[in-house]
Structure formats: C-alpha cells, structure tokens
C-alpha cells in the first residue's frame, strides 16, 4: 500500500514534465509574438523586451529558466500586466475558480447521489422515470448550452438573478448550477445503476431472508457497497468541473483562472497560458491521485502491487 502511494506520487513527475514540455513547445510554434500590437513597435524596443524576458535565448534554455522558476513557485513575468507576476495574477483568480468548482461539486453530489438512490429504491415508478429523464437530458446538454438557457430563463425572463458577475451570493446561482447540474445528472445515473446492481446480489437476499430490518439492510449492506463505483467517478467529475469552469467562467464573466487562460490566449501572453495550464494539470493530477488512494482504502477487494 505504501509502495503503491509512493509510486503514484512519483508518477506525477513525468506527467507534469510532459505537460509543461508540450505546452512550452506549442507556445513557441504559435504564430505571432506577445509584442504584436495594433501599433508597430520599434525593432530596438522589441529586442530590448525580448532580452528582458529571455526570449532571445534558445528555446531549451528558456524552458530550463522557466522550469527552475516553477519549482520555486515563480511562474514568470506576465507579458501583458507589467505590475503583477503570473503567480500573483493566478493566485488572484484561483479562489474564484476553487469556490465555483467546490459549490458545483456540492450541487452534483447533493442532487445526484440521493436522486440516484431514491430512483433505484422505487424502480420503475414515476419518480424513477423523472430521475432517469433528468440523468439523460442533463448529461447530454453541454455546459454552455445549459448556461445560456438558464440565463435566458432565470435572468432575462424571470429577472431572478443577474446574468453575470461574481462576488454577491445571487451571482453564484447560475454559474454553480450550470457547472454542477451536468455532473449531478451523471452521478444520478451511476448511483442508480450501482444501487440496482447491488440490490440484486445474493448477500442482499440472504440479509433480507434472515429478517434484517429494512433500514439496516439499506444502510449496512446496500449503500456501503453501492457507493464504491460512485466514489471512483468523483475523481473524473472533479477534473471535469475544473476544466468545465473554464467555459462557465467565460459565459458568466467570473474572474477565475479559466478566464485568465482565455485572455492569455487572445493576448499571446505565453507565461500566463503556461502558468494556468500547469496549474490545471497539477490540480487534476493531484485530485486523481487522492481519489485513487481513497479508493484503495474504501474497497478492500482490490490489491495493489
């Protein structure tokens, strides 16, 4: 077990090296540089800027300089914001992305898991069919389509919440729902299928035959086993929420990391793009790691070499 955890943690290193190398390479073959503005800049100024930001050095040196900074938590200077470093800019956006993702995860779990359990316990009832309809439709509707539909219905027609912005509680509603409902639908389907699967197992029949109370049966035998597949998808769901927030932030003008990334792309701010991509990759890799380790604790049937 300890060896497994250590191996999984060491595995982060090649993954992050790959991500940084690919991002760095792609950014360098990108046509157009950070100094391409509407007004032409004098060649001497461009040369000075390049020298200041080490852009005149060969690519591999730039990569090494950059990575040695990354290890120390320095994501380099931003090419568009003179007064702040990329680390500062990203740290400014991170709390917004994190709270958006956390609330969305809460929505997904609090709606998806209970709905899936109830649907499975009342299989083929009206409630079950509604849960299935919810699960099918919301899992297929892409986040940004849902976002616009919610804006049109709740902000423009019913005037219940503002269309965009961030900070006040009522501005959280639409972005969080947009991001969370899609994964809530997925969780509903998975939970329902898993509960149904477990309730057909032999040990359930045995427990029922020996006269175990229905409540204890559900709690001790059914849910404990049925939650294992649900826990495994929490990792992919969190990863989806983090990447999905990139879209949602841009729909609702949430000042988070995803919005910074898109801004960075349109302004050719290499270091901002690199920084936010690396952050996304690190967070997702760590989340997957944690979920995998959790999974090893939860399901004793699985052995790890």
């Amino acid at each position: 077990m300890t060896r497994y955890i250590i191996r999984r943690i060491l595995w982060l290193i090649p993954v992050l090296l790959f991500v940084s190398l690919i991002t760095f390479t792609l950014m360098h073959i990108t046509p157009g540089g950070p100094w391409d503005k509407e007004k032409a800049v004098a060649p001497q100024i461009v040369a000075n800027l390049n020298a200041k930001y080490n852009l005149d050095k060969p690519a591999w040196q730039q990569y090494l300089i950059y990575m040695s900074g990354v290890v120390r938590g320095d994501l380099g200077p931003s090419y568009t914001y003179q007064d702040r470093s990329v680390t500062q800019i990203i740290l400014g956006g991170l709390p917004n992305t994190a709270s958006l993702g956390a609330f969305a995860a809460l929505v997904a779990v609090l709606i998806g898991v209970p709905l899936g359990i109830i649907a499975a316990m009342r299989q083929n009832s009206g409630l079950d069919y509604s849960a299935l309809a919810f699960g099918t439709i919301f899992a297929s509707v892409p986040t940004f389509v849902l976002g616009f539909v919610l804006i049109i219905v709740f902000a423009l027609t019913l005037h219940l919440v503002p269309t965009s912005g961030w900070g006040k509680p009522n501005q959280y509603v639409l972005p969080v729902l947009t991001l969370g409902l899609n994964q809530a639908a997925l969780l509903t389907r998975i939970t329902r299928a898993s509960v149904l699967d477990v309730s057909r197992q032999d040990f359930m029949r045995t427990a029922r035959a020996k006269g175990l109370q229905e409540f204890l049966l559900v709690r001790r035998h059914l849910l404990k086993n049925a939650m294992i597949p649900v826990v495994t998808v929490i990792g992919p769901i969190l990863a989806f929420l983090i990447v999905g927030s990139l879209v949602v932030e841009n729909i609702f003008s949430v000042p988070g990391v995803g919005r910074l990334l898109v801004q960075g792309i349109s302004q050719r701010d290499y270091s901002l793009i690199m920084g936010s991509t690396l952050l996304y990759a690190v967070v997702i890799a760590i989340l997957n790691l944690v979920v995998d380790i959790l999974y090893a604790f939860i399901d004793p049937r699985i052995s790890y070499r």
Partner: protein
Amino acid sequence: MATSTTALTTEAPRRPADAEVYVPPRTSRGLYRDAWRRLLRNKLAVAGMALIVFMILVAIFADVLSPYDPNRLFPGQSYVRPDAEHLLGTDDVGRDVLSRLIHGARVSLSVAIFVQLLILCIGLAVGGIAGFFGGRVDNWLMRFTDVFYAFPDLLFVIIITAAIGSSIFNIFLAIGLVNWTDLARLVRGQLLTLRERDFVSAARSLGAPAPRIILQHLLPNAAGPIIVRLTYGVPQAIFTEAVLSFIGLGVRPPTASWGSMIERGNQAIFSAPHMVLFPAVTIALTMLAFNFLGDGLRDALDPQNTR
C-alpha cells in the same frame, strides 16, 4: 485416433487455401444482424438515429435547403426577432439565423466524423500494437498513453489550436490528437482478452498468419465496444468544437458554425436572445441524439443482453 496421429507426424499441418474451405451457409443470425434488430426495438435510439440522418441530410443539402445565403447581409435588419421572412430571426449584422444554422451543421458534423476517423486510426494503431505484441512494447506504449491521458482534454485542444491556428482541418487534428487515448486502451484491453480465447488459439495453431488473425478474428470481435466508444465520442467532439468557437478559437468568420453563432449571440443576449437560443438548442439536440444512439448501440451489441 491412430490415423490422425500418423497424419500429424508424417506431414506438417497444411493451412488450407481459402478457396478450399467449405463455408456453411449462414443459418443462424449473426451478431450484428441480431444487434441491429435489438437496436431497432429501442425507441430512443431510433429517434436519435432519425435525428442524426436528418442532420446529415441537412448538412449535405445545405445550399438547397437554406432560405438565404448564410453570409448575405440584410441592411437595416439586425437583431430581427423570428418572423415570416426570417423564421429564426437575424443576427447582429443582419444575417439569416436559420440559413447560418443549416450551414453550421456542415462544420459540426464534419468535425464529428473526421475526428472519429482520426481517433480510430491512432487508437487502433497504438492499442493494436500494444495489445497484439504485449511485453515491453505494450508497457512503453501504455505508459505513453497514461501520460497523454493525464493532460486535461479540453485544455490540450485549446492550446494546440492556439498554437497551430484554427482552420477546420487543424481543429480536426487537435481534437483527434487529444482524444485517442480512451480508444487505444479499449482496443488493447479487447485484444489482450481475445488473444487468450480458444478460437484465436485454434486459428494460430492452424498456422494463420498474424495479419489474418488480426483482421479475421480479433477486429470483428472487438468492433462492438469500439463502435460504441466512437459514437459516444461524437457529441464530445461537437462540444469541443463549439467551445473552441465560443472562446474565439474556432473556424474563422464568416464561416457559420454553431459555436461561433453562440459566441456572437452572447454579446447581444439582452436584446436578441434568439441568436443564442437556436444554435444552443441545436447543439444540445444533436448531442442528445448521438448519446441515445450510443446507449442503444451499447445495449444492442452486448451479447449478454437478451432483452
């Protein structure tokens, strides 16, 4: 018994030429015909298929079907709400939304198809080589796949498109290059289990060469899950293309694409919500249709399923 032993010792087992093999006429229904029947019994899958066929026809006959040229500007008719002249209204520069929607189907569906072709090629090659040869080759290829898999999909596509430019071909390339890992793992897993099955050992002991084993025995049996995976990949690709257009990395204007229509509409969502609503609903319906078909195919192609 005795004769067969002598036959084996006296002459090497000879692989019969294809022409000599007696192929009995098919009396039983094959797996795929059976699956097709099951698929037709699934109402949601049939509905999804009907919508997909409809969309494909719309994309093919876009020039005939659309009421106006998708790039024709109607001066003084910006942000027109849906009416008799413009069934779905006009956009910010006075272009007919319905016509643009119809032409946008071409972008989305061609992304859907070509991306899956690319994924199929890469996934089959990587997964096939890993699964068929096994050992060290398998180990290295799968580690490579794992590292690729760890890169967040959407982010990777965005960065590739930002780097190589956003022509429609580059969009195919970016989405395909990122999303093949699932299929490679699937193909490898299928091959690893199929390799140990009796009919493959039988073919091998009869002296069938590797390409024949792969083409005749392994691939047809692995095809079911691959088809299902590719079908589920379509809505994912359509979504990715729409996101790219939405954040300004999609096909170049004035080419109509559903994502770029939403992006333009987003800037006028207060005055003209119809500009966002129609492409959004179209994307959602198309994705739903492919998901229904995928669910139907998954159920139909599962031989354990005797519904």
